């Protein structure tokens, strides 16, 4: 049965009921990311879809408050009309996960979904200023607020962001927004191998030019971006945004520096916008639901080493975002979980999350990266403090 409360109070009532009966709930927003993590086995579905609507929007204060079930599209449209945006560029998972429906803003924050700008401008969690949620006891809790700077009490906002509906049912979110940059440009450095590309991206990030996107698209994926319009060879792409005058100065500077690494070309504003959206949405790996897809976060300097090591032993395809620190890795067959996690550890740490895999494969492994014993114990205790009955999304995240 799907429960679809229309108010926060209704949601609290429903959850209190479920808690008293020990009924487990699978929490959904638009359902576009439902394949994320391990499968949830719950008795009922609790949907935020009827908790929808923008509650407050003050463009001059760059803050928006929306109910959790508000479609992302609605928010983005309103922001765009005011030349504003969510700086963390939330990824749209539909194409890559093969799902339909409308992504919701609650889902974005519950999964801490971010895009290419994350490595400089922060993740969804960094823009999230305040939340309202219902905990596993059915109590309505408010955390954070609507101002940028707020250190009043424990930061439950961060804790709930990225907890995938296992700690509480988000009912309302307040987040920071930013002006849309006047223009955007992309510098393409062509034909660099993964290692040189990593060095080039690090060099670019060390320059005072405010690169806001740094991705490397190896030969195997290059043609799957911009309908194959990127220049021949591997493409290392660097994004610059801001005032017209400033971007042109900076792209000169960056281009000059990058010539030391390889041939340099520029995309121009429109193709740039499209390219970074495709990178955000992992375009090369869309529409292949059978192939397991990993999202690996590691130190930028080791992303390509991880891929090189795995490539010797498994069939993989990969490309890099976040200066090399985010590796999107599509497996030909076996998900190679153990090998992958072993290498990540050997390379200094990080984590791999299984974003997509056939149900049978998902059932065999931990979709979220297992934590050390002490941290796992803490996480389990925290879960117990917010959802003592364990009714929210049971099984979704390992150990909690």
């Amino acid at each position, binding site marked *: 049965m799907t429960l679809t409360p229309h108010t926060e109070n209704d949601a609290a009532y429903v959850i209190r009921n479920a808690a008293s009966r020990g009924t487990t709930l699978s929490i959904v927003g638009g359902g576009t990311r439902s394949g994320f993590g391990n499968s949830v086995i719950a008795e009922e579905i609790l949907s935020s879809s009827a908790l929808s609507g923008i509650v407050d929007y003050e463009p001059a204060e760059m803050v928006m408050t929306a109910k959790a079930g508000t479609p992302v599209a609605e928010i983005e449209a309103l922001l765009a009309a005011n030349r504003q945006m969510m700086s963390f560029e939330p990824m749209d998972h539909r194409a890559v996960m093969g799902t339909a429906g409308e992504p919701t803003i609650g889902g974005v924050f519950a999964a801490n979904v971010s895009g290419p700008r994350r490595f400089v401008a922060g993740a969804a969690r960094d823009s999230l200023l305040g939340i309202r949620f219902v905990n596993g006891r059915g109590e309505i809790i408010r955390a954070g607020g609507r101002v940028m700077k707020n250190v009043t009490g424990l930061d439950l906002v961060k804790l709930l962001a990225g907890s995938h509906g296992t700690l509480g049912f988000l009912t309302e979110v307040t987040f920071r927004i930013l002006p849309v940059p006047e223009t955007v440009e992309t510098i393409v450095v062509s034909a660099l191998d993964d290692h040189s590309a990593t060095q080039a991206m690090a060099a670019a990030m060390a320059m005072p030019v405010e690169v806001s996107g740094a991705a490397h698209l190896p030969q195997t994926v290059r043609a799957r971006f911009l309908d194959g319009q990127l220049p021949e060879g591997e493409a290392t792409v660097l994004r610059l945004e801001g005032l017209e005058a400033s971007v042109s100065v900076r792209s000169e500077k960056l281009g000059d520096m990058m010539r030391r690494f390889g041939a340099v070309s520029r995309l121009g504003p429109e193709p740039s916008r499209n390219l970074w959206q495709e990178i955000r949405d992992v375009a090369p790996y869309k529409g292949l639901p059978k192939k397991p897809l990993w999202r690996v976060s590691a130190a930028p300097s080791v992303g390509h080493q991880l891929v090189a090591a795995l490539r010797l032993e498994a069939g993989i395809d990969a490309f890099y975002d976040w200066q090399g*620190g985010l590796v999107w890795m599509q497996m030909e067959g076996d998900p190679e979980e153990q090998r992958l996690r072993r290498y990540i550890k050997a390379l200094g740490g990080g984590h791999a999350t299984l974003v997509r895999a056939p149900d049978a494969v998902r059932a065999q492994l931990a979709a979220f990266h297992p934590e050390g014993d002490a941290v796992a114990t803490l996480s389990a205790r925290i879960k117990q403090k917010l959802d003592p009955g364990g009714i929210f999304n049971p099984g979704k995240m390992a150990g909690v």
Partner: protein
Amino acid sequence: MSEAIRFLEPRTAVVARRATIIGDLVDLLPPECVVHEARELVPFETDAFVAYRRLPLAVVLPKTTEQVAAVMKYCHRYGIPVVPRGAGTSLSGGAIPQEDAVVLGLSKMTRILEVDPANRTATVQAGVTNLSISEAVSPEGFFYAPDPSSQLACTIGGNIGMNSGGAHCLKYGVTTNNLLGVKMVLVDGTVIELGGKHLDAAGYDLLGLVCGSEGQLGIVTEATVRLIAKPEGARPVLFGFNTSEEAGACVADVIGSGIIPVAIEFMDKPAIEICEAFAQAGYPLDVGALLIVEVEGSEAEMEAMLKKIVDIAGRHGVRTVRESQSATEAALIWKGRKSAFGATGRISDYICMDGTVPLGKLSYVLEKTSEIVERFGLRVANVFHAGDGNMHPLILFNANDPEDAARAEEAGNEILKLCVDAGGCLTGEHGVGIEKRDLMRHQYSEADLNQQMAVRAAFDPDWILNPSKVFPLEGRPAA
């Protein structure tokens, strides 16, 4: 000394065992790492929130994570409260001890462990000062962005405890947005690592929870922070206005127009006079309010952005616009601003508020603040981070006059409630500490606070870590 804010009653069983505890601590640590003589404990009785003071039972100054773990394990075993301390620069009393507590100071853990330019990270011990991170990475062309005014002295451990901000956070975010990982000792002495050189958490965002937890979840001993390439140039510009209202409206308009400078700082007339007397930075003395707006980037970028800001300021009746002409001048402008609190000490004792309000309410809250302070027969100087609405009214009073002190405290409480009622919060960057603890119910409901305390209990069920702080003493769950 003010007495309005209570501390927890000392645990008699702990106080009674004082001699034994000190003997054990001396066995655990090298001799120079334990302070226990009565006279020597006195300087640890407070931090930069001097209105309140309590002597600790002992002070330990460990040099390694292992020593921190040994102390925590011991204190946990015997139920001895522990109050962590960085440089003791807290403006909310975060490091004020209590009679049954061991102060755990990180001031001997001052090593920069690694600077990694390729990954733009620095890993440092918790006692490293904020500014020395930027100094250490400067030769590589980087800096560490959060810059609390006390950055010369305050430690990164303390910054993490309070989730410190600073003037330049308008563009670069506060500590939590720039922190990648920590090594931390849990209450029972277990050492864990959260995060690292990679981004985001594998599971729950415990790093985000720890940042700003005011030393109540564990003791951070090492931190990995994000570095940013130093801008090509930076230029603070002074904008003088007739009134605070005009300046406040200008701030809202600048932000509203989609321009985000690196910093927008506000000073009212009393603050301008105080800071100018100390720094001789060339602040205009004939204006009612001053904005310091900093832009950065290449010459062309700074010009372009400044032009837009000057246009907006013109619409708000700006009287003087003065660009800094040299790096020395720019440094002086910032020196004056960053020394504002201390420089106020030249003319008066003060308590410093830290409420944040929505930008649209800046002018209103400024006006109300003056009214409140006047009603109590006191004076106020305002100097704060206007770009993000983080206000710092400095209430001037005479600390040697108990009635004056009590009035100042009451006026402060009213101002903070005003901030909350205006849609803001009690504290933007200084932390709740002891100072704002009893106002927490004004911002949060019973359920909100209970939930926070429950999460806190997942780390420290026995209230050993910094126990008198953050959460009102009444209504705490039983251990």
